[in-house]
């Protein structure tokens, strides 16, 4: 029992640190691409609103990027400190993928981030745009490495086990493993959606406070267009991802649906709500829609897919959790689609910037992209259990042999430090957003940057020092 507790604690620790971390890179990915669009539009149309928005969001990008780097340092070590058996066993595959992610990130930082954040007035517009594009491409490339590694753990391919260790035999097959394309697209879109929701909520917040400028209207409008097209697209991609999961990880899918067993010749219902009970092997209080499960997952009226009872007890993921985390994700996804449609209607009627109900809804939807993304990750990661590398290594066999006492201590430390440090960072980010875009920004050089003596070259330095400075910039501009 003591071992089981230690395993659970180790899993909670990893979940905690990575959940904190993933939020920052996700926003980095989304904002980087948003900045490409803004700068592209500025170069194409020369409308100042795009330039102003570019400068506003690039400061937030900078702070957020720094948070991602700091929280990422821990991740590079956790595989060894907490999952040493896994690292020894599978490091031959996951190590190079992680190393490439780190190299990509540093290449980015060394090459283009400085130009992007500090070079607006120092290099030509074409070169600056190239830097922004490269940073955005780099963030996506970084995500590609990480998702290749994670997807390989979900659906391993291109390897052999020699002397009890994983040996990669075909790197293309390792990287392009069966679940990788779906996961990459799903996560990429999730990052875009989460960012669009934050951008939209920022616009709504300012509009609700009566700060009605062209830039603020523009960012709300752009975010709502994004939601309108991309939220439904995400639902479609999610459906494909689900079918892929059914093919490669049927137990995970059964747990997500709270589906225990098939009745001969009968279609599978879709359980809208209920309480999957792992002990009693049934989903209690189930609200079912007959045959809908078959329709969604097999695209036929009475198709069947494996129920949880077809898997030995010890091979079943916790259905109670993933059933609900999956529903949180999907439910929020529907709300995002609804927001996109509502905004379209309001735009049609000409009151998108005035409807307080819509603006308030947009504001409250701000964090839901991140919540849905985390819920999705909880679904896929807890749904992979009890496996660490699917059907190859159990989680219980991959964890370092630390005692529960040690793990409790470090977990408590992580919680305290992360809340203090990243709490301060988040407050600062929100404050920056609260100051809103400034007109005619970017005509003066940003102080600092690589190549400038005695001034910092780090991302965070691209953001102003204190609230006073921002106020000064505002009145000055």
């Amino acid at each position, binding site marked *: 029992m003591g071992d089981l507790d230690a395993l659970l604690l180790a899993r909670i620790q990893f979940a905690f640190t990575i959940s904190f971390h993933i939020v920052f890179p996700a926003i980095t990915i989304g904002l980087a691409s948003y900045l490409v669009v803004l700068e592209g539009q500025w170069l194409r149309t020369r409308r100042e609103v795009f330039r102003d928005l570019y400068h506003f969001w690039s400061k937030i990008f900078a702070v957020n990027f720094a948070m991602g780097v700091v929280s990422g340092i821990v991740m590079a070590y956790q595989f060894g*400190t907490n999952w040493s058996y896994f690292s020894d066993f599978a*490091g031959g595959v996951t190590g190079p993928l992680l190393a490439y992610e780190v190299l990509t990130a540093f290449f980015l930082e060394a090459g283009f981030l400085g130009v992007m954040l500090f070079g607006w007035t120092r290099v030509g517009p074409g070169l600056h745009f190239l830097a922004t594009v490269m940073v955005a491409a780099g963030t996506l490339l970084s995500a590609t490495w990480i998702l290749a590694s994670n997807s390989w753990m979900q659906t391993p391919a291109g390897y052999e086990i020699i002397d009890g260790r994983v040996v990669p035999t075909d790197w293309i097959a390792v990287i392009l493993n069966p679940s990788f394309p779906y996961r990459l697209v799903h996560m990429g879109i999730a990052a875009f959606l989460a960012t669009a929701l934050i951008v939209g909520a920022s616009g709504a917040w300012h509009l609700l406070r009566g700060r009605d400028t062209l830039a603020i209207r523009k960012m709300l409008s752009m975010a709502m267009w994004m939601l309108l097209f991309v939220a439904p697209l995400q639902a479609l991609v999610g459906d494909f991802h689900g079918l892929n999961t059914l093919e490669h990880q049927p137990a995970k899918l059964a747990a997500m649906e709270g589906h225990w067993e098939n009745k001969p010749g009968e279609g599978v219902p879709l359980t809208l709500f209920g309480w999957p009970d792992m002990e009693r092997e049934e989903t209690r209080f189930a609200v079912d829609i007959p045959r809908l499960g078959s329709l969604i997952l097999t695209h036929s009226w009475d198709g069947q897919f494996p129920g949880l009872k077809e898997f030995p007890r010890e091979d079943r993921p916790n259905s109670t959790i993933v059933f609900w985390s999956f529903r949180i994700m999907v439910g929020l996804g529907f709300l995002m689609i609804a927001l996109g449609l509502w905004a379209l209607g309001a735009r049609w009627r000409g009151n998108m910037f005035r409807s307080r109900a819509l603006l308030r809804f947009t504001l409250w939807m701000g964090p839901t992209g991140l919540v849905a993304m985390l819920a999705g990750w909880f679904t896929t990661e807890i749904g992979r259990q009890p496996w660490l590398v699917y059907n190859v290594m159990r989680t219980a066999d991959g964890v370092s042999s630390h005692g529960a006492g040690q793990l409790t201590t470090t977990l408590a430390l992580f919680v305290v*430090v992360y809340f203090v440090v990243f709490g301060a960072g988040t407050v600062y980010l929100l404050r920056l957003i609260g100051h809103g875009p400034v007109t005619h920004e970017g005509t003066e050089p940003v102080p600092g940057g690589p190549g400038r003596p*005695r001034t910092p070259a780090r991302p*965070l330095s691209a953001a102003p020092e204190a609230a006073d400075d921002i106020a000064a910039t505002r009145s000055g501009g």
Partner: protein
Amino acid sequence: MGIDLPLVWAVIILFGVMMYVVMDGFDLGIGLLYPFFTDRTDRDVMMNTVAPVWDGNETWLVLGGAGLLAAFPLAYAVVLSAFYLPLILMLLGLIFRGVAFEFRFKADDVHRHLWDKAFIGGSLAATFFQGVTLGGYIQGIEVVDRAYAGGAFDWLAPFPLFVGAGLVVTYALLGSTWLIVKTQGALQARMIAIARPLTWILLAVIVAISVWTPLAREDIAQRWFTWPHLLWFAPVPLLVALTAWQLLQRLRRAPDVAPFVLTLFLVFLGYSGLGISLWPNIVPPGITIWEAAAPPQSMGFTLVGALLIIPLILMYTAWGYYVFRGKVDETQGYH
């Protein structure tokens, strides 16, 4: 196989770790010296001397971790789980410190002292636990069936704790000699006054570790004190003595770059001594780089990216230091 991939990777990782110690050592040292300089202006200047470069320095730490996992997964797994607690404390120290760097300048006067304390505490924790890990590493790691078999607190022993304290002295000396280079006037004079006793203490630490290690570890004694090894390796302690003597001399003359360079050389010599003691083990006392190596497919695949990108990082770093050359004083703000 034409190329000895484990050897190539061992060199890359040794280089990476050395880059880390050389480059992050002095800026951690600044945090260690902070308690002795309570004046706001002094503190601003001290932090300004490393503000543009410190985060690039920590690049090597992340690269070291990821590189170790890619090339020597067994060593990564065993070493990191053996030093679980000190490493987590070190990482938390680095987080605190990194964020303090940023928010100290963004904070108002009321909150600045909190970030100052975070900076001091973070620097001290990061340095001390790095040293503890190093000491525990030299002491040796108990491995059974490719896994760490020791206890959670094996590092809580005299030798690792002593090395932890030793590293605090080392980084403090690096920090003070760095500040001799980057500052002038009264602040510089105080740095010189601090550097001299620190040099003596560091010498004592080096001697203590050099005596303690072979006494504690038979194999290391064998490595150093058998003929003809004795002859080959004799230059190391001789150079240590010579360098320390030069360092004390130069601290007495007109201050310049020499003390910092000499301290770096002293660190490099210590690092070489460590290499001589442990080579070719990557998990002392018994696992060599060849035994811990990842499959050649993994090492080769990663090597391509490392060889392309590491030179680029080096060039960028060098350029960063070049533009940042010269003295820093209170008139030159952070921004």
